[in-house]
């Protein structure tokens, strides 16, 4: 026990260093989720370039055609190729989902950091605002906001952003409260480092993992929310090829053309499914008990 050699434990293999970036290759469900998301991204980026059709050009001579070789997913009531519209819609849906989630994440994290670090009446005020927002059913509040602002895609994004940041703020605040009491934060302060240094180097990196999990799970919800509001006519307006709008306009032809409703519906389902799978397995790996166990090792 007296020398360094006796004191040196056997080096643990790197599988104990699980960080959220290293989780994915190990987990089958996460792989499936990530695969779905990657395929969607590729389709969204390159699909519209490859497609020979235009999403808005009408061709009334080929209305409501069933799926065929020329139109793999058929045509809609105005003769537009459904697959092309879906691919363009993927760009919109994913773009909106990422944008709204980013706004929620940034705003929520900022509010949570301020509340957790400042404490006192600032904390009280911010958290009561968060409580108020969380007391409303999100989609109903978004409906009201989008309704007041008027139907457009940008307004739907605004409404969804306003509604959703509260849970990030609450999560970040509680993480900050527990992390800042930990000894390594105290030590960093005792070394004479500034609050900014401690926040940037120690606090934020140690609260970011659960936030990333929440964001991944949240993306699915945002996609559903956008589609839902668009379905109700508050979001994207025709002829914009948005999945929710396509669902709404296809509903009228449910009996004649099943593909009109099913195609965007299945797309929405798979996208949400992919993000939820990824988020779930990230959460399982980073759940408080398990990460605590990881640190104990």
């Amino acid at each position, binding site marked *: 026990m007296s020398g360094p050699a006796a*004191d040196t434990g056997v080096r643990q293999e790197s599988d104990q*260093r699980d960080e959220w970036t290293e989780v994915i290759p190990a987990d089958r469900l996460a792989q499936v989720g990530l695969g779905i998301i990657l395929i969607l991204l590729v389709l969204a980026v390159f699909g519209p370039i490859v497609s020979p059709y235009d999403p808005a050009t009408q061709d009334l001579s080929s209305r409501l055609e069933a799926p065929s070789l020329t139109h793999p997913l058929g045509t809609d009531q105005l003769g537009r190729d459904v697959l092309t519209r879906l691919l363009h819609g993927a760009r919109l849906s994913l773009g909106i989902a990422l944008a709204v989630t980013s706004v929620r994440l940034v705003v929520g994290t900022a509010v949570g950091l301020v509340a957790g670090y400042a404490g006192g009446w600032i904390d009280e005020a911010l958290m009561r605002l968060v409580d108020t927002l969380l007391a409303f059913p999100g989609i109903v509040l978004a409906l009201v906001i989008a309704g007041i602002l008027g139907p457009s895609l940008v307004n739907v994004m605004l409404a969804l952003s306003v509604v959703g940041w509260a849970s990030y703020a609450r999560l970040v605040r509680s993480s900050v409260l527990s992390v800042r009491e930990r000894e*390594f934060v105290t030590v960093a302060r*005792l070394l004479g480092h500034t609050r900014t240094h401690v926040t940037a180097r120690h606090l934020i990196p140690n609260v970011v993992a659960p936030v990333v999990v929440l964001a991944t799970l949240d993306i699915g919800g945002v996609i559903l929310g956008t589609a839902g509001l668009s379905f109700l006519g508050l979001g994207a307006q025709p002829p914009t090829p948005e999945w929710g709008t396509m669902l709404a306009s296809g509903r009228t032809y449910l009996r004649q053309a099943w593909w009109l409703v099913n195609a965007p519906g299945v797309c929405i389902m798979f996208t949400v499914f992919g993000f939820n799978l990824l988020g779930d397995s990230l959460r399982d790996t980073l759940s408080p008990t398990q990460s605590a166990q990881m640190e104990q090792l």
Partner: protein
Amino acid sequence: MIEPDRDAFEPPSDTPVVELRGVSKSFSVRNSVLERLSGSDSSAKAVCDVSLVVHPCETVGLVGESGCGKSTLAKLVTGQLTPDRGQVRLDGTRVGGVSDRSAGQCRRIGVVFQHAGESFDPRWPVGRSLSEARHDADMGSENERGLGDIEQLLCSVDLGPEIADRYPRELSGGQIQRVALARALAHNPDVIVLDEPVSGLDVATQATILDLLADLQQRFGIGYLFISHDLAVVQYLADRIAVMYAGEVVEVGPADGLFGDPNHPYTEALLQAIPSPDPGVAPPTPLDGDPPDPTDRPTGCPFHPRCPAATTECAERHPEFETVEGTRVRCFHAPEATGECEEDRSYQPNRSTRSSRIHD
């Protein structure tokens, strides 16, 4: 190993590196609305009027039961807390809490906590934590102690350079404690506050860490404020010992004198509570009663309700320090209060007994 830049030993100079002057700290206890209306103000007095100095190259041991204010005192020194009354001085300069101290003042004090693993960022390899502690000390300083880079730092605490790439959770208790010590050394402090630094370790590891501490002090001339409830550990390392009871220092003096011939009844009671390895000796006598409630302290001497030698005077007046046989004691009856059982008391200062502890 590395060459010490300074002389191996510097005699304690006159200026203490850390000085506490009449420091007090109380914590307000959240009352219920009813209690607040009735006007009863209860605040827990954690530290009362403590004066203590630590010189360079000196180890001051701070002992006492759990809850006697040892750790609060440490936090007052490091600046995690600010005193309600009294002054904390670093090298003769009065300092406030950690947010009022300059970075240079903060780095005069190193800290090592009991749970060293908790005091490292779990997301960083320990080498990065060391260089974080090192970073600002490098700028403009003459690299006084030859602990220039991380490898040398680790080497000075008997660890190999490969440790720098490990994460805190990958290190054993003894290793992480050494790394914590290396971090405390990284910024060339004048004094290191050691808050129960070996309490979580097994006896053999304790011994190596204690030897390492003694060795580092010899090499670098650092003062230690060593806090522990383990009397044998304190006695092994400390030059002077301060005994705390209910937030007050009741006896302070040279380690050998204080443990060999205690003058305060509480010090004696602490020593008698140590189990002896000798089977012929009577089992340890634990102290009766509980430490006082910090919100409702006894009048007079805080120890009088549990003191075998207490008189009415003890309950009425608060004793001041007197110098008895080289130690400073806060007791009206020193040294007679401890004299009567001196003969049958079997505790001998024994530097090899590291496993015995007072009852916690």
